[in-house]
């Protein structure tokens, strides 16, 4: 039981993945994302070799649809996997195996694929997509975050009798470079989507500071000074993220 969305920002070419699940530490199993290559995520009963393999095949120039065919040929348990693939041009392929459990499915929309299993129903996928498409001008990380929240509010995981809590969640974004641009995680938490929102908002306050102090160390203020300034700005009710670094 998991619900996820992979997406691409058509303006910037940034690629991203948002995911939440009952399982612990799901963000530690999301290595299938590479700048200027694509996104590949296998879930349900995951074959962990799929995602690194998928990224290599996309980098060689194979289309997502062909990569999916190769997955099927390379894996005797393909029927138990749920997979979404997107390349850097936004072309996609998706597969929901018949052996995945509970209500299970995927849905393709502009610049995204929503997919999940063990869900209360198709309304969760509709929620993921409406959240993603609600604010198309927002940075990709916020679009993925909103997607997860609307997916959760549409019922998330479980069935008519019981809701399964989201115990871990992650958002990962790549942007041209070979290390992640954004990579926020909640590994063990009773309400992981809420906690992920808190984490993302907090990280966004530090994002520029962290990047610039690495690039221009001689100009960087100590972090405890930065944090003190942050607290002062918060006390004055000004938005720290819009202040100069």
């Amino acid at each position, binding site marked *: 039981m998991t619900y996820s969305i992979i997406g691409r920002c058509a303006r910037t070419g940034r690629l991203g993945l948002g995911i939440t699940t009952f399982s612990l530490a799901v963000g530690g199993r999301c290595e299938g994302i590479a700048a200027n290559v694509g996104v590949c995520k296998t879930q349900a009963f*995951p074959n962990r070799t799929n995602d690194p393999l998928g990224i290599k095949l996309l980098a060689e120039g194979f289309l997502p649809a062909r990569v999916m065919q190769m997955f099927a040929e390379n894996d005797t348990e393909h029927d138990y996997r749920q997979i979404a693939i997107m390349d850097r041009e936004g072309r996609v392929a998706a597969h929901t195996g018949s052996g995945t459990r509970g209500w299970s499915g995927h849905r393709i929309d502009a610049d995204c694929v929503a997919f999940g299993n063990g869900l209360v129903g198709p309304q969760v996928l509709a929620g993921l997509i409406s959240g993603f498409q609600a604010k198309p001008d927002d940075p990709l990380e916020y679009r993925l975050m909103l997607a997860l929240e609307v997916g959760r509010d549409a019922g998330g995981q479980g069935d008519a009798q019981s809701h399964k809590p989201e115990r871990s969640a992650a958002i990962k974004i790549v942007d041209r470079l*070979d290390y992640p641009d954004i990579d926020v995680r909640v*590994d063990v938490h009773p309400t992981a989507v809420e906690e992920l929102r808190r984490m993302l908002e907090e990280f966004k306050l530090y994002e520029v500071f962290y990047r610039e102090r690495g690039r221009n160390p001689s100009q960087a203020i100590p972090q405890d000074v930065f944090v003190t300034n942050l607290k002062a700005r918060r006390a004055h009710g000004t938005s720290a993220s819009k202040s100069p670094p």
Partner: protein
Amino acid sequence: MTFTLLARCPRSGQVGIGIATYSICVGLYCNGLRSNAGAAMTQAFVNQGNNTLALNLLAQGFTAARVVDELKFNDPNSEYRQIAVIDRSGHAVAYSGPKTRGWSGHKAGDGYVAMGNMLAGPHVVEAIAAGYQAKPDESFERRLLRSIEAGRDAGGQVGNEGHLTERSAALVVYGAYDYAELDLRVDLHDKAVDELRRSFEEYELYRGYYRDRGKNPKDAVPQDVFVSRLERTEAAQ
């Protein structure tokens, strides 16, 4: 302000990192592990291109010492970096740039580097190394975690106004595969090392289950069944 153990397990060939810091989301920067290539970490003022470059050089066959030199030659701000590199022979080399802040230093031993900056003193790095070596027969990931706890207990990081808490932490291990064997994080917490221990112990209960259900889906019990069994086992103890 960060303290770290980077290591290669001589028994298994696994490479791993344990890290804790006042900064949030430190796991974002821990992308310097690759199966059968080696391990690299740059901290203090991070050059985010370093880890990938180091792994590419290690994979090509350069020694750890040579890789650290290349990272320095390639970076006009190298004096602000703190770097550790371990190659697949277990040679471990570190560099603590003179412009990293506070007490800053490292200890490179056989197959490991303990390092940190803005620390309470050299005893923190010594404690991290000793923590790693305390129980050599334990699993590699437990040894990494123990070393970070030892760094915390030895006083950890200090800022302008005294002790700085660990707000994020991570524990990552690569083995034979090109995906992580273990990748656990605490991104934002008042006591991130304590929380990392809690997460680790919880995740350990599930680890085999998660691995096997992917490999043998047909035989996998649903996770809620697995969880109720777990709860019954715990209640019985």
